[in-house]
């Protein structure tokens, strides 16, 4: 009896000790990357000019990016171009990660060499985690409109897209409006890129459906109703659309950002005729946010990456991937825009709609309360 008690107490003590020890973080390495010159630089000038930045980045030799699928806004080509231009090895981790998972990875891997250096986040997550970024103003800072960046350089929008409907022209008829999707020709065909209570792209898909069904940015109930009707008609596929399901014809209609749908069309040319359609009057624009991790293990490479993204070359590479770069107006004026790629962008009739914070919150609350019931 006594031995059990002793054993029990000893076990508890050991467990408590182990827990206490592991709950604290290990001691930080003596020269933390954030404390270096590059880690404190707020612009290239702080380091003595672009050449010094490039040299410092090459010395670091590596860049960790996260949540950048190669076929998303042409990131595959951007990563390769950056790596080739500066001879820096780019480690692309977790391409499927959501914005929240990027932040989680940064805190879980803090201090390790594999922690992400830069983030590409959806607006909601970006605004909730401003404390994690290091301020930096790229060389072309002034080209970006004030509403698309944070004044001290903590974050800046990088590209935007419109919510669209991609469809397999060989399998389903071309929709001319959103309501067409409720017809029998689309039975078991329509997929949304994720759950709207979880993924930003799907959330905007519901907003687009609301706008196209007579709702407004303030009231997305009609959007949720549209998907409920879609489910009742047997047209909604709960499958997660991936390049494989699109190529195999399992998901003939997909709600996703226009740059994603256009990228699929380019990739599948000859195999599948994938077309992109934006319903008129429902041009929901979504901007993504670029930020540098304050605890980036490679701060110079992170800053050079941002310089590259906001250079003409980087912005045109985004455009090649059918994403609308944030410097588009300045580049048009300066004549450096890739006009061929620009004119190939899908047409979006109507004024672009970007949800304000209040509208986003209202929509989120409505979805949290009603989405599962509507399509369950």
């Amino acid at each position: 009896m006594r031995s059990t008690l002793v054993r029990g107490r000893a076990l508890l003590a050991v467990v408590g000790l182990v827990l206490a020890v592991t709950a604290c973080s290990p001691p930080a390495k003596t020269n933390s990357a954030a404390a270096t010159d590059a880690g404190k630089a707020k612009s290239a000038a702080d380091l003595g000019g672009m050449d010094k930045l490039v040299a410092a980045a090459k010395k670091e030799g590596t860049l960790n990016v996260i949540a950048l699928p190669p076929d998303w806004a042409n990131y595959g080509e951007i990563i390769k171009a950056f790596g080739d231009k500066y001879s820096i090895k780019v480690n692309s981790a977790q391409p499927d990660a959501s914005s929240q998972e990027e932040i989680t990875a940064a805190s879980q891997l803090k201090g390790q060499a594999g922690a992400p250096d830069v983030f590409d986040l959806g607006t909601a997550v970006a605004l909730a985690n401003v404390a994690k970024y290091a301020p930096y103003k790229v060389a072309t800072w002034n080209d970006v409109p004030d509403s698309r960046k944070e004044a001290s350089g903590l974050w800046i929008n990088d590209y935007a897209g419109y919510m669209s409907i991609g469809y397999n022209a060989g399998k389903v008829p071309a929709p001319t409006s959103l309501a067409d999707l409720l017809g029998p020709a689309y039975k078991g065909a329509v997929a949304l890129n994720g759950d709207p209570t979880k993924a930003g792209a799907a959330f905007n898909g519901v907003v687009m459906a609301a706008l196209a069904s007579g709702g407004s940015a303030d009231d997305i109930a009609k959007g949720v109703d549209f998907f409920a009707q879609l489910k009742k008609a047997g047209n909604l596929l709960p499958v997660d659309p991936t390049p494989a399901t699109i190529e195999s014809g399992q998901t003939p209609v997909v709600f996703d950002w226009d740059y994603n749908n256009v990228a699929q069309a380019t990739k599948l040319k000859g195999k599948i005729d994938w077309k992109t359609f934006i319903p008129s009057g429902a041009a929901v624009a979504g901007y993504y946010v670029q930020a540098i991790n304050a605890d980036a293990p490679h701060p110079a490479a992170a800053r050079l990456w941002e310089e590259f993204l906001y250079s003409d070359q980087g912005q045109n590479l985004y455009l090649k991937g059918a994403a609308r770069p944030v410097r588009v107006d300045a580049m048009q004026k300066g004549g450096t825009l890739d006009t061929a790629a620009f004119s190939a962008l899908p047409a979006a009739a109507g004024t672009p709609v970007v949800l304000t914070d209040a509208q986003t919150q209202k929509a989120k609350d409505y979805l949290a309360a009603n989405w599962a019931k509507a399509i369950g």
Partner: protein
Amino acid sequence: MAGLIARRRRRQALFRWVVVAVLAVFFLLPLVAMFEFTTRGTGGHRTLATWRLLVHWGELAATYPSLWDGMKNSFGLVLFTVLLMLVLLVPTVVWVRLRLPGLRRVVEFLCLLPLTIPAIVLVVGLAPVYAWVVYFLGDSTLTLTFAYTVLVLPYAYRAIDAGLSAIDVRTLAEAARSLGAGWGTVMVRVVLPNIRSAVLSAVFLSVALVLGEFTIASLLSRTNVQVAINLLGKSSATMSVAVSLASLILAFLLLFVLSFAGRRRRSGTTPGDHS
């Protein structure tokens, strides 16, 4: 009696082939669908281009460098995880059976715990532990061995427990001890040879688990073969399905070769004489 046995063996053979055939159809159909998808080419033609690229290893490694890194890491992880599992789990399970029967349910629950917590949540808990592991051992992907050994516990424990329940381990141990054997000899020379098929099952499951594990490696931003295949799938869907299928076939071949390590010398048993 001989006629009875022969009749029983015929019935068993029929039962065997019917069951295997029906289940084989069930298991092979999805794999056939995967293969069919990889042969789709432009314009609706069938093509083996994807498979030809797969076979040209040099080209593949150049186009998708992370695949080779992933495979190297995975093979290292398989080796270390199986070793750690064999060294840590097998002796402990036998020891608990023989000497600490009161702890048996505790060990059983602990060995089921890794399976009750979804991997995405387990990573939340593993991250601070791995911060320390990286501090002491560096951030090589091979440190995932510890996490994988934990993941493998439920399956390996169950297999070894099933094997132990089939032999009279207590009597064997008592007999050996009474003949003067130390506990080491009992473990290695008396018990282990009798649970060979169970240990082999545990090794099978460990190899398959490590080769198929994706979530923890991905969330800790490490590269293993499944993470590499996933990244590959973003560039080319047919290629990623082909690589998945190829990795299934390779794992199958690996296990097939391993099965020869578990050769059973059951003298006195004529084949097909079971039950």
